[in-house]
């Protein structure tokens, strides 16, 4: 009995020890980047890491008023993410509803479709898109990036919304149609409001996907439509100077802040989407 208790105690210690380690590994790098973005320049290069300092907003001020027009890039990113999330959501809701409610040939391959979308490396599509966008005048436009992101994110939207609509019994739509609604009316007035939590989770994930996207922005955007993810790379080292650590950290923090807020506030709703394709909803 005594050894059993000691074993239990040891286990508790082990669990808390490992948990603490996990928490430190997850949180410390994020903390360190935030701290670096707030440090005076001299302290960033201190040989022994400085943990206590008087925070300064110099790096952030530089982003917005100094050399870089970072505010505009953030706005670009927000427009692109909002635009492509809305477009993907509309297409995803309609197609997802169709998949959930109707039987048709090829319906069962949809689950594979999301996997096939994951297979396509963006770099492979970037080159044809670059040539096409140049030919139709979409290169370096916000619209061009909205369309490109939508093309990549629609399969996720379809799959995600399809899984939410499948959870709503088809009877409720049919009841509405008996009461005189058209199919579209039943979708808009009955199923869509019932799927509201799914709509919110899906649209936030679509926003995050587009906000985080880097490669297509790098290839398809020049100065006009440059998203913030691409703009952060100007602080990387060049032949003339070293990395601008404070500024690069500040831009990294600005990029991840909205996403992390979403992640923490709406975690329960987002996890389903994050593991979509692996875990059957």
């Amino acid at each position: 009995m005594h050894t059993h208790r000691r074993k239990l105690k040891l286990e508790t210690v082990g669990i808390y020890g490992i948990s603490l380690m996990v928490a430190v590994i997850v949180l410390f790098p994020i903390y360190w980047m935030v701290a670096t973005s707030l440090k005076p320049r001299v302290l960033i290069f201190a040989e022994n890491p400085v943990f206590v300092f008087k925070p300064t907003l110099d790096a952030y001020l530089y982003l917005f008023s100094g050399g870089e027009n970072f505010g505009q890039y953030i706005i670009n990113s927000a427009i692109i993410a909002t635009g492509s999330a809305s477009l993907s959501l509309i297409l995803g809701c309609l197609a997802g509803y169709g998949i959930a409610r109707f039987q048709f040939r090829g319906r069962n391959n949809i689950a594979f479709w999301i996997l096939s979308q994951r297979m396509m490396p963006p770099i492979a599509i970037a080159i044809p898109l670059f040539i096409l966008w140049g030919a139709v005048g979409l290169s370096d436009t916000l619209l061009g990036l909205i369309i490109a992101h939508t093309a990549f994110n629609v399969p996720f939207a379809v799959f995600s919304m399809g899984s939410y609509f499948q959870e709503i019994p088809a009877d409720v739509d049919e009841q509405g149609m008996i009461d005189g609604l058209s199919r579209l009316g039943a979708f808009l007035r009955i199923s869509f409001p019932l799927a509201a939590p799914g709509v919110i989770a899906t649209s936030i994930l679509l926003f995050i996907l587009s906000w985080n996207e880097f490669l297509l922005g790098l290839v398809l955007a020049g100065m006009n439509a440059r998203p913030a993810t691409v703009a952060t790379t100007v602080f990387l080292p060049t032949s003339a100077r070293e990395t601008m650590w404070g500024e690069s950290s500040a831009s990294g923090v600005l990029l991840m802040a909205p996403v992390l807020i979403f992640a923490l506030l709406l975690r329960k709703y987002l996890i389903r989407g994050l593991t979509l394709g692996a875990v059957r909803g």
Partner: protein
Amino acid sequence: MALNIHLLPSEHPSSSILFWIGLHSYELIVKGGFVSFVGFGNYVDALLSPEFQNSGSLTVIFICLAVGAEFVLGLGLALLLNKEFRGVNFLRAIIVMPLCMTPVSVGLMGKLLFESRDFGIVNYVLRFFGVAPRIWLQDPLWSLPVVALVDIWQWTPFMALVFLAGLHVLPMEPFESARVDGASRWQTLRYITMPMLRSLALTAFLIRVMDATKTFDILYVMTGGGPGNRTEVLSLHIYLTGFKWMHVGYATAMSFILLFSIILTSLALSRRAKI
């Protein structure tokens, strides 16, 4: 789920354009582009080129390091988070953070932690344990594993969440009878938990392999392919060939080969997963 090859050129217009450009010599350096038909020349050149082969093997090494570790650590983390103890909800909440974070930010963060010899926090901690400081990201041997480590930081939570979802829906009876029969924890894990999670594990593995093949952002930010081309994985190699050196036709041929190998790998893996 029936599994067919859906990415044949005839079914996906974008990939057939890709294939078609790959058959051409397409140089963007000339204004308007210089295009001439070279047949399979680009494909042959790519397969024979030492740079392409180097990038290919780096990609495979990167995937093995990153996804292998994510798999093992993710399973461990899921088993931990599946217990009930004080603070577990806090842990469940924070592991979602890396998963959502902008990969470019994650790359900048990794660069900050690892890059410099003089002020990097990682070197500072390692010096504590008597390890000589080094410039990790410019080290021919260590740069790729360090980038893989950053990928592991970001994506282990994915594996953990998938396994956690799987553990939640497992039936209780086999575990109870195992305990009655006096099975050790390792035996329970090895002979009961793992077999029941098999299909889920393979799917998660497949998804991560496909995603890791496409890794671009953190490498672009952290190393840019260097030192030399020691971290120039395929996606980066294709990007540099197409958009820095402007050999669009050649780059496209390489991306077609990349796409094709991803499809073959996924088919092989998903056959095993029986999905």
